[in-house]
């Protein structure tokens, strides 16, 4: 049995118990840094796995006609790409950042429930192995889209759907445990003086994200459970012949699905709110309004779900309500964007790699947000629904939004984590390479979408050929850029210029002000002082 002994963490001389050796260190670890690292590597692996499926999609769409894969396999690719990126790449990456950063940002010795923290992670490799294995089973992987609408996922789905259902159950268990841990840590483990309104915004956004996770992951579990009983035990939740309704599935799914969107973007807001002030060398403008905006977005996120289903034949009153509520979200989101811009106003700005990614985030996330506003207008959505315009929209918010913030967070905190500076030149190449290619990839999709090209179809009409070819070229270039990123990550971990404790001239926060780079295995065994 072991209790942390007090020692002065700030000097970086850690005579405390270091990690165990070998593979079992990672399997049995209860250390928030180890678990954060595991999450981040899982997310990167899944990013490359999901990305490879995106490459197959773009390859098939490079030219009109069926070129490389069967339509059924194409459907499997779009489905699995979405599932793997949402549940395997973006969400675990943010949980990894939460694990690494929250304890060192609030001055805690570790997460509140370290053993459960281990379990939250170690369910995921099993869940994704189960999910990925469906590709190699009879009937192939799920092919009904990542939203798995009934009856495609019930009456007409392959047997492998049951493996998918249970994989989702496992991911849900993992997410709920992870979120409980985050909330318990933030509410119970803050150092003396770290009042709620002094917490870094990354901590705030994660507190609210964790609440969203606990509120909606069980609803997703309920939805897939009803799918399972509809498939095997004769229930009729999603079958009109028994008095149920396939549209009911969509309502339940999107009651989960819309807050899920904010689960994937609120922590990104936290990351950007940390990076912009550092490189503008000014405190964040409107801190408390950022907190309230985040909370408002979270509350509104529960009340807008049916804007994903404007074309299912809802009563007009429903369409109007969901339209207005949706447009309302742009107010707190606008507050955030304006606060970031105002933070930079008259700042002494420099443009190191993390700042570039953060600025890229602000510009391109706003593009995604504006196309979201267009989609939120019910009569207009009738035209855009299920076209490539939607694909362009959510890739702007998820790739140049969520993923960009994760990459920005990597460049911003990796010197703190490893004690090594990344290679600034390579980081900048990575940014420009990615940013040019990602716009070549997704921007033309707005045009083909507006012109009527449907999503999730392996072939298209001839007039879309040029834009699709351009889009595919951008896609291959963007994919390659992330292999280059893998090289940068490994290079930085293995060595590099020694990072200072502060890392960045303008950096603030406990992790930069009171911990060495890298921080000791157990960071704050004695609570730090918060000014």
């Amino acid at each position, binding site marked *: *049995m*072991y*209790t*942390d002994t*007090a020692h002065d963490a700030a000097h970086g001389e850690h005579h405390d*118990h270091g990690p*165990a050796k070998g593979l079992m260190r990672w*399997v049995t*670890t*209860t250390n928030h840094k180890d678990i954060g690292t595991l999450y981040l590597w899982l997310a990167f692996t899944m990013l490359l796995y999901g990305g490879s499926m995106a490459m197959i999609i773009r390859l098939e769409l490079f030219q009109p006609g069926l070129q490389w894969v069967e339509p059924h396999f194409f459907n499997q690719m779009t489905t699995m790409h979405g599932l793997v990126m949402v549940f395997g790449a973006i969400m675990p990456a943010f949980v990894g950042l939460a694990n690494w950063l929250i304890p060192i940002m609030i*001055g805690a*010795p*570790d997460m*509140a*429930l370290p053993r*459960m923290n*281990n379990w939250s992670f*170690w*369910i995921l490799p*099993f869940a994704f*192995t*189960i999910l990925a294995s469906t590709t190699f089973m009879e009937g192939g992987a799920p092919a009904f889209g990542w939203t798995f609408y009934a009856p495609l996922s019930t009456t007409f789905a392959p047997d492998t759907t*049951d493996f998918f*259902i*249970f*994989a989702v159950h*496992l991911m849900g*268990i993992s997410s*709920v445990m992870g979120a*409980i*841990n985050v*909330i318990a*840590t933030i509410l*119970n*483990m803050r*150092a*003396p*003086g770290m*009042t709620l309104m002094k917490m870094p915004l990354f901590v705030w956004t994660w507190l609210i994200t964790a609440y969203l996770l*606990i*509120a*909606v*992951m*069980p*609803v997703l579990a*309920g939805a897939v459970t*009803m799918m399972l009983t509809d498939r095997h035990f*004769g*229930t*009729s*939740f999603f079958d009109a*012949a*028994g*008095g*149920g*309704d396939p549209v*009911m599935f969509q309502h*339940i799914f999107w009651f989960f699905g819309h807050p899920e969107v904010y689960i994937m973007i609120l922590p990104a807001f936290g990351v950007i709110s940390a990076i912009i002030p550092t490189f503008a060398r000014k405190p964040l403008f409107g801190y408390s309004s950022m907190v309230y905006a985040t909370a408002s977005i979270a509350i509104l996120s529960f009340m807008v779900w049916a804007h994903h289903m404007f074309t299912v034949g809802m*009563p007009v009153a429903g369409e109007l309500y969901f339209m207005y509520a949706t447009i309302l979200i742009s107010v707190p989101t606008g507050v955030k964007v304006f606060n970031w811009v105002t933070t930079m106003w008259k700042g002494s700005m420099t443009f190191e790699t993390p700042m570039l990614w953060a600025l890229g985030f602000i510009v391109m996330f706003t593009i995604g947000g504006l196309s979201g506003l267009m989609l939120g207008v019910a009569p207009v959505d009738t035209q855009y629904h299920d076209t490539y315009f939607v694909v362009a929209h959510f890739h702007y918010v998820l790739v140049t939004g969520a993923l960009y913030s994760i990459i920005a967070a990597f460049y911003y905190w990796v010197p703190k984590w490893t004690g090594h500076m990344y290679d600034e030149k390579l980081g900048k190449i990575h940014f420009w390479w990615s940013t040019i290619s990602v716009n070549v990839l997704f921007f033309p999709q707005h045009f083909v979408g507006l012109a009527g090209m449907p999503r999730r179809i392996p072939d298209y009409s001839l007039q879309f050929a040029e834009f699709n070819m351009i889009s595919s070229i951008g896609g291959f270039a963007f994919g390659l850029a992330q292999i280059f990123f893998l090289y940068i990550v490994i290079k930085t971990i293995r060595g590099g210029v020694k990072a200072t404790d502060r890392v960045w001239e303008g950096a603030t926060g406990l992790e930069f002000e009171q911990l060495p780079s890298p921080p000791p295995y157990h960071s704050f065994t004695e*609570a730090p002082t918060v000014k």
Partner: protein
Amino acid sequence: MSSASNQDYYVPHGTHWPIIGSVGLALTVVGFANYLHDTWSATPIFVGIAILVFMMYGWFGTVVKESLAGTYNAQVDMSFRWGMGWFIFSEVMFFAAFFGALFYARMYSVPWLDGASNNDATAQYLWPDFEAAWPLLMAPVTDKYEVITKAMGAWGLPALNTIILLTSGLTVTLAHWALKRRDNVWLVYWLFATVALGFGFVLLQGYEYVHAYQDLNLRLDSGIYGSTFFMLTGFHGFHVTMGAIMLLIIMIRAAKGHFSPEHHFAFEAVAWYWHFVDVVWLGLFIFVYWL
């Protein structure tokens, strides 16, 4: 809320229970999926569940040992409290999905199938003979979904079960009072009463299921009424069973003298859980049985 000092916060040093739990979980669900497809027997499911039970026994056993050894300070205790509270909230949201399905079916899908709102054409084209009602005894397609002869009433067995569960909520509170006045004898007695009431509820619920299947032809596959009825009461019954087992373990621990008026979080966590299943039942009684 933040503590004066983190110095004694207990950070355990490595644990093998989670990976065992993951193996158990994965085996259970993969076994279940294969069982559904007739590719495997049911054995892997039970092996998986056995691994999970072993994990819980070992994990909780470790925590109990550490707790008795005085490893946990007040701050650790508070982490456990937040953890349990939010876990129960997640359970509430799990039930919310099924209640949502119930309300949607009653308010929208069933009336719409009969032409309500602006769905005249739908009703005419699909099943013109279908008549909306709740409880829905006859689904639109009766050769696929069984016809129910009679809906489950509220004022027989379900009302008795309501009294039983509400009483058990009282007995668990009496047990808590006994615990607080260091009366270990009555603590165990009242816990025993709670466990007995809990299992009594489950038995009566089982009897009700037999009645539903044999006498009312109310089945899981008898349309949306049967689907919502059995999913909601079934998951609730499962939670009552789990809660009663948890109470039983707490009773055994109480008999061993594990709890003091100052340190008895495990008791409180299970009591919270028990009140949660109680409240869910009230929702069920009102919306599934009564109204």
